[in-house]
């Protein structure tokens, strides 16, 4: 059995198990915020993993995640809340419209005579601002009035609101991860990695670079928009300020950089850790500190752990797993945390600390290529 088949079976098992979570939580009479915690984590997993398909795989750094997310939010908002479309019918439209938005951007920036990663990054930064002003300008989108999503009917088979959110976010996150994995293990994915490493050389060896960059950007935007479409429900009252702000791109970048851009799993890993971190900080009443910590982490991570912690932890998976299990055990037995989420949080922090401990000799993990992945600069073909 190849490793790919094994992984696909793993995907199937995870899908079945996670799908049961809301039912189990309900039957155990456990607090329902566990479900909320998990579906918010799914949201961030999907956003950062899809972002990584563009930025981690092809090396084109994007600030544009907020734009794709926003297109998705407003699409389901307009179609389902304003025009009464069935929500599940509006959802795929959200993904497709965001994907088309990505392709449109790609048609422009990937055709430029002078291409560079920096120009691309700054253009994506501008896209969200433009979309924000378009949304404010036209009343058929928003016109400055916002859209109420509360009371949008959902099909009965999805369960109550929380369970429905869990199921929908889970399906989207699952599809995003599966796509990221299948690309990672395919010819197309490797073509993208070659673009990241040296685009002109990849082109000369036969990689259709334009097509692949479009594919990466389109996939990124599609999943960003699809999850955005689901998320409009959680937002409740959709406004331009809440949707097209710097929050989504900022978190997505941080999560992916923390987890590592070189592996399809990295950003998912980073998403869970950062989300758990901010969730706990917020519940401890430290919202103001949040951004300072996040900004600081971003700086430190870019300089210190260039390959991301996922690859590091994988290389040290035995001590890492031991620490995690031990910590969960100690915390639960001695009842140190006030809830299971706190236990999980402390255990994760300790595990991450394992990844951050610098080791003198680590030939397989401290490989310098990671710095090149981060620094996919020099991409101006003559």
């Amino acid at each position, binding site marked *: 059995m190849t490793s790919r088949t094994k992984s696909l079976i793993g995907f199937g098992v995870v899908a079945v198990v996670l799908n049961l979570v809301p039912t189990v939580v309900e039957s155990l009479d456990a607090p329902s915020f566990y479900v909320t915690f998990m579906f918010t984590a799914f949201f961030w997993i999907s956003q950062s993993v899809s972002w990584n398909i563009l930025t981690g795989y092809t090396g084109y*750094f994007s600030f544009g995640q907020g734009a794709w997310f926003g297109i998705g939010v407003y699409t389901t908002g307009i179609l389902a809340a304003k025009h009464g479309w069935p929500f599940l019918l509006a959802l795929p439209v959200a993904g497709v419209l965001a994907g088309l938005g990505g392709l449109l951007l790609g048609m*422009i*920036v990937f*055709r*430029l*005579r*002078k291409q560079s*990663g*920096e*120009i691309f*990054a*700054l*253009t994506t*930064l*501008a*896209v969200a*601002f*433009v979309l924000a*002003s*378009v949304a*404010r*300008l036209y009343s058929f989108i928003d016109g400055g009035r916002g859209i109420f999503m509360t009371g949008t009917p959902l099909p009965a088979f999805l369960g109550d609101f929380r369970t429905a959110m869990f199921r929908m976010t889970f399906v989207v996150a699952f599809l995003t991860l599966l796509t990221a994995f299948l690309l990672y293990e395919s010819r197309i994915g490797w073509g993208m990695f070659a673009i990241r490493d040296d685009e002109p050389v990849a082109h000369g060896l036969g990689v259709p670079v334009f097509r692949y960059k479009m594919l990466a950007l389109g996939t990124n935007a599609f999943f960003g928009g699809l999850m955005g479409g689901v998320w409009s429900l959680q937002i409740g009252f959709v406004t331009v300020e809440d949707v097209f*702000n*710097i929050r989504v791109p*900022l978190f997505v*970048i941080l999560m992916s*950089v923390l987890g590592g851009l070189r592996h399809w799993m990295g950003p998912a890993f980073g998403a869970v850790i950062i989300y758990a971190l901010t969730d706990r900080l917020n519940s401890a009443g430290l919202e*103001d500190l*949040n*951004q*300072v910590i*996040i*900004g*600081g*982490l*971003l*700086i430190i991570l*870019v*300089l210190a752990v260039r390959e991301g912690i996922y690859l590091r932890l994988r290389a040290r998976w035995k001590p890492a797993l031991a620490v995690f299990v031990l910590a969960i055990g100690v915390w639960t037995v001695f009842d140190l945390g006030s809830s299971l989420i706190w236990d999980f949080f402390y255990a994760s922090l300790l595990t991450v600390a394992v990844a951050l401990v610098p080791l003198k000799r680590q030939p397989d993990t401290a490989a310098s290529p990671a710095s090149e992945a*981060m*620094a*996919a*600069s020099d991409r101006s073909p003559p």
Partner: protein
Amino acid sequence: MNDVLNQAIVSGILIGGLYAVMSVGISLTWGVLKIINLAHFSFILLGAYVTYQLSTTLGWDPLIALVIVIPGGFLAGVIMQVFFELAKVDEFQSLIISFGIFIIFQSVTRTIWTADFRRIDGDTNPYESMSFFVGDIAVQVATLIAFGVAVAIAIGMTVLLTRTYFGKAVRAIVEDPEIARAYGIDVRRVAVLLSGLATAFSAVAGVFIATFQSLSPNMSFGWFGIVFPVVILGGLGSTVGALGAGVIVGVAAGVATTEWGPLSASLVTFLILIAALLFRPQGLFTRQSST
């Protein structure tokens, strides 16, 4: 003649001067030092808030705040560049790291001055309401001064870059830092000085913003959409280019505002950015060979 349109053009030219001052620092560090420093947006914002604070608590004329803001900005630029040199960051990492710095300052600003709008009181700020007429066209003194400063910076930097040893060193670094180093130029020192100068310009822009706009921490996000079109249209590292591009963007946004309403301005500037990238990626005001 259409008076409203003429007014929009004149105001656009003048506000274009402010856009140039806001952009010139980022343009210089990007073009010369290959550092994309988003933290400049923080220093524009800080410059504005410090001016507001000095005016409000000490009753200073806003322009006197320059005495504090210029050295403060210079020092911040020096510190940042020293950090970038020590950490040996490349262009790409500088983008992410300075994004982190930007986020931290954003939060700090919000903590100190809250998210409420702040405006310098009319009593201590004579510039806001001061204006005169040329024919039927009103000229706001605050933006006129900013435009004058933009012209002064453009001229001053041109003289500095063409007539002095420092300027020669900067141009040598643009061509090739390694060769510049081989010829005995202290690249690190030149870079630190230039970064200080660039950040001081950004902070100065903040002072002028404080003279005629209400301040809020989130306003810095809106600047991204103005500054990057100006930087790219003007050509990386070009101070004269920044002035020309600032005026183009200012006029285009001003005309768009009068014709289609204020929200269309950022659409128009974005279209200008795209057009600039498509047809003139090296900038309107630079020769093909440079950078």
